[in-house]
């Protein structure tokens, strides 16, 4: 496959799912990704664990900023940080970028789009850890489709047009992790 590379299976996702069940208030505290005009992620719920420091300016400089800081949710969802630490070790990561928990309810979709491959996206590699993924949850990039099952970890090349349709019976919850790799 050109755009998807599976790098792990069987990650124990239960501790994170349990933490999410106990902290539903964390969803959608940061909605910039899901509410701007024309966003393809309008049907998504987010929790930002690590992102650029919010200085109130959301311009190209913000988008290109390579430095990310921990957000308060990361202090609550500690099991997610354990997964990230393990992933960093597995891929020999040198630097940690943004980390987002993202949820797509059944029947919802992320519209087709291409990520802007600017300074930030050129620098970091994007990994998806599937915390909840069932058959029928379709992730398409160009002419390739995958279903990320619970516990799978994938490297994803976001430069191709991609979309997600959650036609499964349960939420699709992914942990998006950006890592600078050698």
């Amino acid at each position, binding site marked *: 496959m050109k755009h998807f590379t599976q790098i792990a299976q069987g990650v124990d996702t239960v501790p994170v799912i349990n933490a999410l069940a106990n902290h539903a208030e964390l969803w959608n505290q940061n909605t910039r990704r899901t509410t701007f005009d024309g966003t393809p992620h309008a049907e998504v719920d987010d929790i930002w664990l690590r992102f650029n420091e919010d200085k109130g300016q959301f311009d190209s400089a913000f988008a290109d900023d390579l430095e990310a800081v921990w957000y308060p949710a990361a202090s609550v969802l500690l099991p997610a940080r354990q997964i990230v630490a393990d992933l960093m070790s597995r891929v020999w990561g040198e630097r940690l970028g943004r980390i987002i928990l993202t949820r797509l309810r*059944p*029947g919802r979709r992320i519209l087709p789009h291409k990520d802007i491959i600017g300074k930030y996206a050129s620098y970091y590699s994007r990994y998806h850890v599937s915390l909840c993924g069932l058959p*029928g949850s*379709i992730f398409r990039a160009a002419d390739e*489709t995958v*279903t990320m099952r619970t516990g799978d970890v994938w490297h994803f090349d976001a430069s191709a047009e991609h979309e997600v*349709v959650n*036609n*499964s*019976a349960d939420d699709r919850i992914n942990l998006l992790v950006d890592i600078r790799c050698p």
Partner: protein
Amino acid sequence: MSLITYSTEPWDEIKLEILPLWQSHWAEISDPEDADYIPLDPDWDEYQASADCGILHITAARSSGALVGYAFVFVKRGLHYKSTLLAHFDLYWVEPAMRGPWVGVRLFQEVERAMRARGVMKMTNRCKTWCDVSPIFARLGWKQDESGFSKFIGD
């Protein structure tokens, strides 16, 4: 109309859900002249072996997570065409309640996309004369190049 999505799925997951659909499938398309003598009796071990060695390809159709259709395809080099990768459809079916104008077309299109990605040169398929889906084949650019025959000799 329900949303239906199509994707390649592994046998190890499909096998847990497939039997009720196969039973409905068999009830619809089995030959009424010999159905009493040739019961549905899937060779699970053979399917497993085909999956384990990468020959078996499955495209699944799902609606709200439920399996509502499938195409099973065996991908291998031809006995007479060793240098050529071929795809032979084993079986395909969509639940009657989920059938719509484009469901069969999209199922076969997804199979074709996957077969092209695997480097398959030619696909072969068939349909029952009493369950004719040849308009779908025609729409997708297939041609009829053989006629199939069978004779029951188990009486």
